[in-house]
């Protein structure tokens, strides 16, 4: 039986547009990204976003097993999105469910356009995303982290992929829906862009929006993604700057 009962807040958003966590409609939760926290993986990243804590790791390009999966002219890209048993209020049974299988697929399709797969024929690039703590928006957080892990692994890419969800709560289009809005909001729209040309590589919508709301949501999503992209760049460069500063003795 559940030890934690979800309670729907009386008001999801006030008339002035104040959300259950105090944010304005266009505001994002705090985000922190760290690159290279695992030793054995070829590339890794950790993202903390609101209450989300997500690890991503990349192995490869490496040899394909089993052999019959080999693509002669390009790299195979495999993705596993997985939620830890302790990532949710109620313990989640280990192992893939229908949701995580679908998310693994859409995340792979979000990242693949960024990878020069033709540079690594006959090999495989494995991307693993582990949600340690979930708090709405895990797939977009996972995409941001996985994209960093790919770059950290030194894989040839057209550009980074950055991602953010937007949604609708009543009449408001909101950025980065929180847990309450994810549960009881009216629409949820995760999106990702390949930052080289800002084309969309992940887009899902769950819930109705008018044309006007939809346009606003896309625009809000793009602006949020641009902001996250700046954070990604900073996260990738930071370790090198830290070393440079310590070597040069600059405080």
């Amino acid at each position, binding site marked *: 039986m559940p030890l934690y009962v979800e309670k729907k807040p009386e008001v999801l958003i006030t008339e002035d547009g104040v959300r259950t966590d105090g944010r304005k409609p266009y505001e994002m939760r705090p985000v922190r990204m760290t690159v290279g926290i695992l030793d054995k993986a070829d*590339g890794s990243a950790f993202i903390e976003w609101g209450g989300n804590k997500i690890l991503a790791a990349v192995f490869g390009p490496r040899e394909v097993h089993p052999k019959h999966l080999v693509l002669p002219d390009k790299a195979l890209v495999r993705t596993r999105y997985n939620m830890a048993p302790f990532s949710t209020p109620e313990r989640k049974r280990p192992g893939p469910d229908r949701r995580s299988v679908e998310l693994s697929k859409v995340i792979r399709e979000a990242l693949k356009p960024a990878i020069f797969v033709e540079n690594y024929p*006959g*090999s495989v690039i494995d991307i693993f995303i582990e949600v340690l703590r979930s708090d709405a928006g895990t797939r977009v957080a996972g995409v941001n982290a996985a994209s960093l892990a790919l770059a950290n692994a030194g894989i*040839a*890419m057209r550009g980074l992929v950055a991602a953010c969800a937007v949604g609708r709560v009543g009449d408001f289009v909101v950025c980065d829906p929180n847990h309450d809005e994810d549960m009881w909001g009216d629409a949820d729209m995760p999106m990702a862009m390949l930052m*080289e040309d800002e084309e969309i590589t992940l887009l899902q919508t769950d819930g109705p929006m008018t044309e006007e709301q939809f346009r606003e949501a896309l625009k809000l999503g793009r602006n949020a993604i641009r902001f996250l992209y700046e954070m*990604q*760049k900073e996260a990738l460069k930071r370790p090198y700057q830290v*070393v440079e500063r310590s070597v040069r003795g600059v405080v």
Partner: protein
Amino acid sequence: MSESVVLVKNREVVIPGQALAKGRFKLGRDVYRDDSGFIRAKKLGLADIKEDTVSVVPLSGVYIPKEGDIVIGIVSRISGSTIIVDIRSPYQGVIPIPRGRATERVDMRKYNLKLGDVILAKVKAFDGSSSLLLTIDMEGLGKLEGGYILEVEPAKVPRVIGKRQSMLTILKEKTKSDIIVGNNGRIWVRSPSLKELLALEKALRKIETESHVSGLSDRVSSFLTQELSD
């Protein structure tokens, strides 16, 4: 032709997709030209702007074989007339065992290898995807006896060797060790004692993490002097 513009500083850390330049530059390694003519980085690395060429010197990444490379491999399988070799790459190396009499100049003892043996080999041919031919039929190549294997990021191998082997000379002299560096980032070492080996290992980590900051040789040299002082 449009005007040539450089958008980054030389040796600046750049990320995949970052625009480096536009105009009449040749494409060096690990860059591509997008539809609107910008030359962009393919990998996380250091921008390398030469007079007519724009490249990126990657800071990480697995080893992709090139013809002529010297690699340190581990025998992973022996099947009939071929020896399969792991070279820490997506691609397995193959060494065909020559048929005894036909090639008399071949030293057949070299091919008497066991599973797990460490060999120094040369990349003879690579088709870019599946067939990777190695050879040990040259003086100095073949099984490595004794010593130990350390690993560095394959992308950092040029820094471990240095210009005209300058870094490698420092490492060898300071640690009084025999060192062979494979292009695939495996490094064979024979040190007088554990102390020198551990110091060398630390020096290699230093090269990996500080390769983007100039003055690396001097820092590694004084680090090793200090580490091995008493």
